[in-house]
Structures are given as structure tokens and as C-alpha cells.
């Protein structure tokens, strides 16, 4: 049974792609390995003052494999740099109340990270620094710091694409491309 565990970082509603990766770093190309890594070091650096740094100064990855968010996470631009920089920073999953469509799609197509949805407003009950474990198959999330468990939604129609490992793997498996 696949699980994802680690320390969580909590953000609130309407975190847009300019906050995830500010436009001045869009000159970096995600398919060039050293620029992929560089994108990771800038992940979430556009968050307003008041948030603790997601990636510590001088570090190239974050200490938070799980991101907890409110509504409409990833809204704004279609820049794939957004899920890519989170993946490059070491994020394995986002658990949000809802997503902007293109961000969600980019997570699924790239296979960079799991975009889980939850009916519960977890950004109110988790604190940055809490430890958590996601049981991917069992569709629930445990806050190891408080011991409480919360349900997450099944991935639904995109599950076959996620399970295949992205749009290319899925299309090859179903014979759409060679």
C-alpha cells in the first residue's frame, strides 16, 4: 500500500501560480535538468510576507513533502513550472479543498505530484511543521502530530492517467500513441 509521509506546509485559499513560481523565473526551462533543480529552489517564494520560507535560503529542496491548501490552489497561469517547481523541491502531494483546473491537469499529466482533494478545510486544522501520512489507496490522511485522521477524495476520472504515470504513459497503454 503506497503511503506518503513527512512534514506538512500549510497555505490558504487562492494560492496562484505567480506565488508558486514568480514570473521572473519562467526563463528557466523545466526539461533542462539543472534548471529543473533551480526551479525547485524558488518554489513558493512568491508567497506574501508572513509565511515562513518554504525552501530555506541556500537550500535547493524543501523539508515539506506534503502541502496542505485551501480552495482554488494553483489558480492563474497555465505555467507547468508551477507543479514542476513543487516536484523539484521534493513535494510528493498536495491536499487541497479544490484546485484550479489547469494546475490539477498539469499535476496529472506530468506525474510530478498527487493532487488530492478533501472535503474538509484542512488548512484550518493543520499547522506547518505537523507530521502527516497519506494512505494513497485508502484515501485518507493522518495528522501524526495530533493523531486525527481525515478522508481524501478518490481521484475519479483521472485515476487511470495518474496510475499509468502521466498522459504519455496512459496514451501508450491505451494505444493512442506508440
Amino acid at each position, binding site marked *: 500500500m503506497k503511503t506518503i509521509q513527512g512534514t506538512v506546509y500549510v497555505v490558504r485559499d487562492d494560492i496562484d501560480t*505567480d506565488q508558486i513560481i514568480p514570473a*521572473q523565473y*519562467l526563463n528557466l526551462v523545466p526539461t533542462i535538468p539543472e534548471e529543473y533543480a533551480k526551479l525547485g529552489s524558488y518554489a513558493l517564494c512568491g508567497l506574501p510576507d508572513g509565511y515562513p520560507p518554504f525552501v530555506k535560503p541556500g537550500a535547493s529542496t524543501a523539508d515539506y513533502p506534503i502541502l496542505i491548501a485551501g480552495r*482554488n490552489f494553483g489558480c492563474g497561469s497555465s505555467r507547468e513550472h508551477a507543479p514542476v517547481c513543487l516536484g523539484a523541491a521534493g513535494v510528493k502531494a498536495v491536499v487541497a479543498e479544490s484546485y484550479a*483546473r*489547469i494546475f490539477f*491537469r498539469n499535476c496529472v499529466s506530468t506525474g510530478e505530484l498527487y493532487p488530492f482533494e478533501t472535503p474538509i478545510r484542512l488548512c484550518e486544522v493543520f499547522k506547518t511543521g505537523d507530521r502527516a501520512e497519506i494512505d494513497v489507496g485508502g484515501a485518507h490522511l493522518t495528522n501524526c502530530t495530533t493523531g486525527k485522521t481525515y478522508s481524501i477524495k478518490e481521484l475519479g476520472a483521472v485515476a487511470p492517467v495518474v496510475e499509468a504515470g502521466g498522459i504519455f504513459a496512459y*496514451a501508450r497503454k491505451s494505444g*493512442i500513441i506508440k
Partner: protein
Amino acid sequence: MAMTLTEKILARAAGKRVVGPGDNVWVEVDILLTHDVCGPGTIGVFQREFGNMAKVWDPSKVVIIPDHYIFTADEKAHRNVDTLRDFAQYQKLAYFYDPGTPTYKGVCHVALPQTGHVRPGEVIFGTDSHTCTHGALGAFATGIGNTDAGFIMGAGKLLIKVPKTMRFTVNGTVPPYLMGKDIILKIIGDIGFDGASYCAMEFNGTAIRQLSIEERMTICNMAIEAGAKNGIIEPDEKTFEYVKAHTNKPFEAVYGDADAPVDSERTYDASTLEPCVAEPHVPSNYALARERNDVKLDRSYIGSCTGGKITDFLAAARILKGHKVAIPTFLVPATVEVAEDIIKSEIDGKSLIEIFAEAGCEDIAPPSCAACLGGPEDTFGRTSGTETVISTTNRNFPGRMGSKQSRIYLASPLTAAASAIRGRITDPREFM
């Protein structure tokens, strides 16, 4: 079964008689648009998955319009345009609009219809969220990431979910002080920043019919600011006139069925709407311009795919004629064609160039996305401190125009121009 406009276009592109909301279908793609910010990554995905020597599925359907980071000393930005140029040459792409050459156009969402690549009934994907602009001409158009775009480059198709349709009917007469921007900001204010998530926003009604194609583009452009998958307007005579003036390629227009069920319906009367702004830091923070007179401004910015078309500069000039701006006022035409139209256009015998110069605006910048999305530090008009800006662009997120500390109010060009004169948020009716 009756289908909406969006459903009908997708059914045709999927080779199916009927599709409905929630269906996942493979659709054939008519145009793939990319630019300098997402093009190199898209090419990287395409080559990784299909091979370094692979050819795109159709070199006449991949359109590359560099526009984001053009007038900058940033080395990587130049490298990225070089990557696009090499790819376009190797692939023998028919449509690559190369910066620094006479083929350069400017902002892709204004350039795409101007170069005749937007045709009613077709399916357009672009590596930019504002690709939804092109629904203004009766096409299905939406933004995607590099991976999906790399897939289309090789396969010519994409798996997508058919969106539910939300219908917005705007009736009544559009008053001279009201613009497409005021209409869409009102709608986004009503339904919220994620109010149309995963949905098609279909705009119709007598007021929409009165609007020019450019004004319709402003409305569809901002569908993404409510989270929509696409914005769309049924084609009419104005659409056909515009399309035929820009291309002789044949197309087959699609119309929705009158009895097609929609997910929700809202109706507006344009004659009762007023000039407005979206306050920091989300486009759904709707407020009437006349109720925000107390907001002091440091800068006015007129440009972008939403607010840098010739109709936008004509509107601004109508207000600025015979007045002086009180704050630095930046003008960035979206495309070369818009820049040329600014030179050619006159109001009461006075050229727009003269009107802007006499009003004390900054020199007109070369066409590109410029400060709409911040960008490299040497970007024209980029904020660097605590500036409060009134802008005709489409987003006001923290840091969107550069500095996280700056505050952006979104508005129509009429309101941005009136506010430039006063140095405070101002209803354009004060100058009409």
C-alpha cells in the same frame, strides 16, 4: 440530444455524434499555440517522448508567437527564443513570428486572431491560460501545460473532459462609458474567483452582439479569472467579417442548440452596469470606480492581451484628449498591428500619438507582454516597490506586476485613463 456551443465543437472534434458534460474524449486539434516562456519546455517534452528527430504532427498547425520576454537583456530569455527559432527551422513550421524580424507580432492572444489562426468552430490549445480569449470568435480555446502541449505536438490530439456550460446573457444597450472589462469584472465579482471552475462560460445577449470582436476578446480572455476552462461567444456577422479579413482559410461555424440544457444561467442589463475596478489581490474583488475615489495611485498602465488592443487605446485617448496625466502612464500596444493602428488612428483630426504625448504619457513601448506579468527585472513598466497601479491587465495577484508589495487595481482603459488624469481612481464619466 441538444448540445451547447462548446459541446457541439468538442463532439465534432472528437468524431462523435453527441458528447455531454463530464465525458472524457480525445479531440483533434486545429491549432497549437505556444510562446517563449512555455515553448522551450514543450519542445523538451516533445523531444523526450517522441525522439530528438521526431516531426510535429502538422507543421502548419503549430503556431509559435514569442511575446513574454522580448525586450530584455536576460540571457536565458534570448536563449529560449533561439530554441524556438532552431525548432521552427528544423520542423519547417509555417508560422513562427520571430522577434527582431519583420515577422514579429507581439502578444500571442491578440496576434493569433490578427494572423488568421482563429476560426469559428475550431479547437485551439495554447500553453497560456489566456488562450480562452479565442472563444470570442466562436472557437473552443483553452490553456494547457507543457506536457499536454508536447503530447499534441506529436499526436495532434488531446484527452479532455467536456465542461458544463454556464450561460451569461447580457442584454440592453451598452453605454459609452462601459467596456467589456466592466462586464467581465462584474460577472467574476458575482460568481467568484473560482465560480466557473472546470466550466465553459458562454456569453450571449443583445449587449454582447453590440460589442466589437476586440471587446468580446476582453470578456473571453478573463474567463480563466473565474477558473473557467473556456469562454465562448457564438459567431455572428461581425465574427465572420473579422475572420475573413484575416484569413482565407475555410471554416465551418458551429452554433449551439437553443434547447440545450446548461448548468446555470445569469442575466444582466448592460445599461445598469457601471465602470468598476478589481481591488488587490484577486480579480473578483469588485468595486465601483466612483466609490473608490479615495485610492491614490502611483501609476497607470494600459496594455496586455486584455487591455492593449486598438479599441483600448482609442478608448483611453477619448478620455485623455485635452488633459494632462497626474501620474506616470505606461502604454504598451499588444502587437505591431496595434502599434501601427495607434499611429494611423485619429480622434477629431488629432492622432492618438499626439493625444498621448500632449497628455504627458510615457513614450509608447514596443509591443509585448511587458509588465503584465512582471518578468525579468529590466521589464518595461515592472513594479519594484510599493506602487499602487491601475492597470488594464487581467490579474492582480501579489507580485503579479513584479513587486510583492505593489497593489494592482484592474480596470477598463476608460477608467485607467480617467484615473491617470486625477491620480486617484476615477469614474470615466467625469470626463465624458
